[in-house]
């Protein structure tokens, strides 16, 4: 499995990280080094082994489906880079 610059660009896009065109070959090379390392896993016989979901055998706890929190919009917005009139503010999403 070898990653080319087009795949690197696609992955960057999926991850929503801007990567300059000129940096894509180096990025692809890094991916290949890491994936080459990961590919050792193909040597392992995993027939009949279930993928691990949880490392501890405990069942996840459930709770009543009720509101336990809320009514603190000022705290929720306190760290926003741009908040106006009780909302997070972002650039135009829909034309």
């Amino acid at each position, binding site marked *: 499995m070898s990653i080319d610059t087009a795949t690197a660009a696609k992955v960057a896009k999926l991850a929503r990280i*801007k990567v300059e065109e000129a940096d894509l070959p180096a990025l692809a090379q890094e991916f290949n080094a890491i994936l080459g390392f990961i590919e050792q*896993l193909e040597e392992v016989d995993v027939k009949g082994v279930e993928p*691990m*979901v949880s*490392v*501890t055998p405990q069942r996840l706890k459930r709770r009543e489906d009720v509101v336990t929190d809320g009514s603190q919009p000022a705290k929720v917005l306190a760290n926003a*880079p*741009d908040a106006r009139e009780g909302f*997070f503010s972002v650039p135009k999403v829909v034309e």
Partner: protein
Amino acid sequence: MSDLNKFTIADARDALRAGEVTSTELTEACLSAIDAADSLGAFAHKTPELAMERAKAADARLKAGDAPDMCGIPVGIKDLFCTEGVPSQAASRILEGFKPEYESTVSGQLRDAGAVMLGKLNMDEFAMGSSNETSYYGNVVNPWRAGNSDAALTPGGSSGGSAAAVAADLCMAATGTDTGGSIRQPAAFTGTVGLKPTYGRCSRWGIVAFASSLDQAGPMTKTVRDAAIMGHAMMGHDPKDSTSADMAVPDFEAMLTGDIKGKVIGIPKEYRMDGMPDEIETLWADGTAMLKDAGAEIRDISLPHTKYALPAYYVIAPAEASSNLARYDGVRFGYRAEMAPGDGITEMYEKTRAEGFGAEVKRRVMVGTYVLSAGFYDAYYNRARRVRALIKRDFDEVFSAGVDAILTPATPSAAFELGKEVSDPVEMYLNDVFTVTVNLAGLPGVAVPTGLDRNGLPLGLQLIGRPWEEGELLNTAYALESAAGFVEKPARWW
């Protein structure tokens, strides 16, 4: 009394309760030590006013006779923990200016027990790194130096600030977190003790998430006894973390008898790596002999899938990170990039994340994105989770065959020079070769300093225990610590 900052937690606790010293005095001593140690880069945010306020409150509590073990003890908190009203940015630009409106459960438990937070400790960005060189704040420098050299060494990572601060006596202890070795490797590089508890022992609520199925907080201390005391204060069930274990936390300190007669210690052959330095081999053999002399039975064991732990980790951890770090988008908190005319929301996300994340974080987020992407999910992610199940099975089998604890080296080398390994990511990942299995299997592990290399740098051994048996594990670590008699401290140059 002088050198109050050099106290252990246990000694400070006893002196506080006897009225021989006040928390205010201990805190002042640590604050001056911190101010004199800026060249180490250990503290990213200092909180002296808050510390003095909490020290005074602790003194009042001590006077009233209502003092838990951690009451009045000055500690440092890794920057990964959200601390109310105090910058908490995981050493990342993307959380610049972020001051949480809430406190993480673990740091909150320490605060409620009366511990005094001195400030936030430097670390690798989002806990991704093994040398503390990925921090937006800059490097942490190890207080230890090799021989007569004045070359700057890594304190390890990702809890490098925590390890350096404890080793340099800037605080009595510190919190760390460990996803692949981030408590135990820096502890080994700085001659300190680091405990990673069983997955689920410490609540993850309010700790900036890296890889949720692997992350676990733990204490970084000067002694095993201190790890028992502080670990106890950090652990416990938390309804806000669905993976937190609803189990009683025993009094670990009371379990430190040093008696390990008849305990079975496993020595895994797969941890004898090609090209391992002689000094590590010798350290390991010496530690084995110490436990044998203390009455333990030594047994050769096999953990056949050890070799595949690092590659499995470098699928699972980036996959979980790519998901966890999706929340940093410039909308709700932290950094937002400057926009160009005509930029829409996608450009805002892409620029914010490109400018806000450092190189290693971007690399791991993108690797994680790739292994989770359509067509590769089964080949990479599911395969890694199957291998993880086999790695856990290896441990289950040796424990059910009667092994009580496993002894291994903590790291493949002593602390290396800053800048030396940073250029090759895969080379850097090998630092965690002995520690990462423990995270994948969810087990408790502890690094204990047991010797020095030929350049006078500390080296540590790792003990791995059965799940939920931190008390037994710490008792074995206590026996090892007592036999090794490691008392060396770095010579002050900073």
